[in-house]
């Protein structure tokens, strides 16, 4: 119990801002929450790593994507299956911000791509159909270049690069020039690069094109393993049915429209899935 003198001394000796500290803490907390809200758009992670709502895209009068809607749940492997010209690459170009659709809702980990493109792109790792490595630079230099484009400091980048190279088992090729790598290893480097900044979702546009069956199988297995073990969401575009596993989510795209969206195993096993896919695409041709 403090007497009156002690109370008075207490208030004199205390810094006058002390009584305001709880208010300052509340403000800081709110500021932090506000910044977090700005960064993520939501305080809790959304159920979908990627959500596309009614995406329409046309080149002049030619409609490439016709009101596409799809979602990739957190930690899921989603195969985007479609024949050549189905609109997969256009979809990837819109998702990666290379093309902009005025009539689309694309949300990456809950962030609206159109409203906050830089924040949304920071949540994505992208592997393009064509190789995008600088062939004259070493594997490590290529990865360092990408890390810098993501704004990573050299120290953080060095740790992330070693980790990514270990994940993709390419550490022994770190000093080799990209030109000296075979197609399979180039793809591994590109996947390692896409994982450097710990993205919430990785988009891969026909990553096995031009690879032999063994390399194709190795890459497909590797990405499935990443998805299962590390909880990274994956959108994998392909025209090859054998790259789709029964447990995968499957979206069939044909002539710019979604023909099927559900679990792959619902369509049957490898053989029957292939037949069903061909039947579906032939029926709408």
């Amino acid at each position, binding site marked *: 119990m403090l007497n009156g003198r002690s109370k008075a001394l207490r208030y004199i000796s205390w810094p006058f801002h002390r009584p305001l500290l709880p208010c300052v803490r509340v403000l800081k907390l709110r500021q932090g929450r506000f910044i977090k809200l700005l960064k993520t758009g939501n305080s809790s992670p959304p159920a979908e790593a990627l959500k596309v709502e009614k995406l329409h895209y046309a080149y002049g009068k030619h409609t490439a994507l016709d009101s596409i809607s799809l979602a990739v749940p957190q930690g899921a492997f989603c195969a985007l299956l479609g024949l050549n010209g189905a609109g997969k690459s256009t979809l990837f*170009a819109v998702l990666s*911000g290379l093309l902009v659709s*005025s009539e689309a809702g694309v949300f990456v980990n809950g962030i609206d791509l159109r409203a906050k493109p830089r924040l949304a792109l920071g949540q994505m790792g992208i592997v*393009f159909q064509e*190789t995008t490595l600088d062939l004259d630079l070493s594997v490590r230099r290529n990865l360092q270049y990408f890390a810098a*484009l993501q704004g990573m400091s050299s120290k953080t980048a060095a740790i992330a690069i070693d980790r990514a190279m270990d994940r993709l088992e390419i550490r022994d090729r770190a000093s080799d020039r990209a030109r000296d790598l075979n197609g399979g290893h180039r793809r591994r480097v590109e996947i390692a690069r896409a994982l450097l900044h710990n993205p919430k979702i990785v988009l891969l546009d026909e990553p096995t094109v031009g690879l032999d069956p063994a390399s194709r199988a190795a890459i497909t297995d590797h990405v499935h393993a990443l998805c299962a073990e590390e909880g990274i969401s994956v959108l994998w575009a392909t025209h090859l049915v054998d790259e789709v596993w029964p447990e995968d989510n499957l979206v069939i795209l044909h002539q710019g429209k979604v023909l099927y969206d559900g679990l792959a195993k619902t369509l049957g096993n490898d053989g029957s899935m292939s037949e069903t896919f061909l039947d579906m695409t032939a029926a709408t041709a």
Partner: protein
Amino acid sequence: MKAGMIALHAIILREALRFLHQRGRFISALVRPLVWLLVFAAGFRSVLGLSIIPPYETYITYEAYIVPGLCGMVQLFNGMQSSLSLVYDREMGSMRLLLTSPLPRWWLLMCKLMGSTVVSIFQVYAFLGIAAATGIFMPLEGYFLVLPIMVVSGMMLGALGLALSSTIKQLENFAGVMNFVIFPAFFLSSALYPLWKLTESSRLLFYIASTNPFTQAVEAIRFALYGQLNLVALGWCIFSFCLFIGIALIGYDPARGSKRKGGPP
């Protein structure tokens, strides 16, 4: 801001490394102006008489006259070569990597421009060094004063290349642009002869050459090499830079894709 500076450093380093790896490009960048300096100028020095015009205070040799023009030519070719690499990058896909990074697109294009400008300045100094070795000297202070001017002229010519590359769909189209842009820009300028000589044959050509941004870049370099500042030329270069970079930014705007025909980029 920090992320932007990290990206700038990385892009400049990459441009420099690419340039060093491409030895053929370095050699051709030096041989081109040296042929003009050591062969063309030697043949024409007795044909072309030069009066005393600013910034010169005395009679100079023809070789000394064309050095600033050849510095500009090095930067012009580098700017075009850089945009050629952009078209190549876009076809090969590595441009996508740049454009999908989480940084403002205008900043990424500026980084690319700065990278190409650094390379062009390195080429110009190598050329000036060889010119000095063959006995063609500039005033000592000129070698330092020309540096900031070359940053502006390099950025302007690089922005021109960037603007052109945004309109070019395929690498094959670029050869035509070289013929329709580089040669007219070079010959309709004060790089090889003073502009007053053009008035003797055609007043129209004189006016076209006077408004040519490359002429202004050459004049800005010429004055700086002789320790003087040509504000009009510098201002014209800055204005041209703003114009070209504006066109390039519109050209690389992803929203433009929906207005064009064809497939994905």
